[in-house]
């Protein structure tokens, strides 16, 4: 994980920080969800504990910690207890492989009587060359925790919820992975950094031997493949099992779906996994279609921002650090906007029926995603004919 003690320490700290970021985001999102739903439904929501009800998060966490331990008599104890732990892993592994800021270049420096560096630290847990394939791979492990919870609880509702959830997840995984083929054709790489680098600067492309240039628009993927972005977004909703796709926990029919028998912190861990999926989906949407950690103004590319801080009198290391900070805030804002859309949709649309859900996945999303890929491929071929 590094060549010397400093690099290894920083890399391990990054991994732990990213995981804590995911865990910490959950109470904030739950608060946002409750306040947001109250706002949409013309209610007040939690507003008594602390300013704006923010302390409610802390009170809830403490309450969850001190809940009574409960193990149903018929449950398969190992599966029942392992399922919430397994629920945390796919989201955390996927989130740590996403770039959340421009790389920090550290110039050589002296500390504790010896020379250190130079280093390049990436604002992500680990850089895997084929980024998106890795993310899809670990996300596909998400079905295990549901099936373990459903089988381990030995409850009809849990079992039905888990089966529904996994059938739904795998159906929409097809549309999800196929909707990305179009944008992969456009960029010709799996690597997140190369994809983000392609999206810097103003929108310009060549077609039939002519050059088109829109200097007021950023060079984002959404302008090349809008249908792919829409399909990806909708499949991401279904993958995270939320309204309008929350059939696995349809409370009118299945009590609470696969976590019917869970309470206290174990239930909260399923929520952490679910919100982790949402954060990963939002970050992927930002990286593929909205410029990743780039800023939305075309002339403010990462190099330009770095140059701006260097001209202000920062050293090369601190200029790089400031650039990383700015780009980190940029992608966090994008992720936050998409998460708000997740919450907004949840409290606006009614739930589908199960046959409608499956019809949408197999008969609408899958053909459209396929058509998107084929049309993109043919179009790329046609415009490049000399």
């Amino acid at each position, binding site marked *: 994980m590094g060549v010397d003690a400093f690099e290894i320490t920083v890399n*391990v700290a990054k991994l732990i920080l990213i995981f804590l970021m995911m865990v910490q985001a959950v109470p904030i999102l739950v608060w946002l969800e409750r306040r947001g739903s109250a706002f949409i439904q013309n209610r007040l929501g939690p507003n008594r504990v602390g300013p704006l009800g923010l302390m409610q998060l802390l009170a809830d966490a403490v309450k969850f910690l001190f809940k009574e331990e409960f193990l149903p008599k018929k449950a398969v104890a190992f599966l029942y207890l392992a399922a919430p732990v397994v629920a945390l892993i796919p989201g955390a592994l996927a989130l740590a492989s996403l770039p959340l800021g421009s790389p920090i270049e550290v110039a050589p420096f002296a500390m504790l009587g010896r020379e250190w560096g130079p280093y390049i630290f990436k604002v992500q847990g680990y850089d895997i060359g084929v980024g998106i394939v890795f993310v899809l791979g670990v996300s596909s492990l998400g079905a295990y925790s549901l099936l373990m919870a459903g089988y381990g609880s030995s409850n009809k509702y849990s079992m039905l919820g888990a089966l529904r959830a996994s059938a739904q997840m795998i*159906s929409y995984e097809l549309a999800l992975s196929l909707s990305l083929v179009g944008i992969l054709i456009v960029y010709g790489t799996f690597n997140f950094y190369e994809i983000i680098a392609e999206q810097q600067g103003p929108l310009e492309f060549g077609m039939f031997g002519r050059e088109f240039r829109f200097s007021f628009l950023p060079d984002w993927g959404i302008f090349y493949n809008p249908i792919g972005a829409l399909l990806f977004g909708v499949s991401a909703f279904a993958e995270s099992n939320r309204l309008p796709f929350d059939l696995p926990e349809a409370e009118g029919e299945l009590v609470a779906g696969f976590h019917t028998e869970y309470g206290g912190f174990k239930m909260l861990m399923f929520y952490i996994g679910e919100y982790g999926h949402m954060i990963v989906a939002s970050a992927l949407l930002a990286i593929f279609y909205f410029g990743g950690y780039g800023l939305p103004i075309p002339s403010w590319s990462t190099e330009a921002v770095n140059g701006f801080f260097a001209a202000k009198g920062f050293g090369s290391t601190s200029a790089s650090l400031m650039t990383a900070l700015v780009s980190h805030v940029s992608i966090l804002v994008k992720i936050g906007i998409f998460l708000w859309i997740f919450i907004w949709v949840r409290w606006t649309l009614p739930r589908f029926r199960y046959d409608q859900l499956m019809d949408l996945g*197999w008969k609408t999303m899958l053909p459209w995603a396929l058509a998107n890929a084929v049309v993109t491929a043919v179009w790329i071929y046609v415009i490049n004919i000399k």
Partner: protein
Amino acid sequence: MSALFAVIFMAVFVAAFGTFLVWGTAKLGPKRVPNEVRDMPYESGLPGQDMKTTNISVKFYLTAILFILFDIEIIFMYPWAVTYLDAVRAGAGGYLLAVMGIFVLLFVIGLIWEIKSKALEWD
């Protein structure tokens, strides 16, 4: 290789963190009083029935097997997609388009057949 260590570290750390939370909340919470009714599987207030009476549609199995097939086909499109742009610029785009065209045609025939044969209908 270095990335692999980081991945394994992350997985082990998250698993340890989760196990610690499950163990810790079990220690922190109040001790339970044995209670036969509460230990039964939750059944909306009725006495619990056995799992065997639950019939599960074979559609779930069919969905899963069709998912595997289409998933494999989509995975084959991934390496094709990332080499396509370079191939088009190098002049080999027509060949690659034809190769994938035949593959996608088989995919489309399969999908149309599944829809026509009502294998994807849920009722």
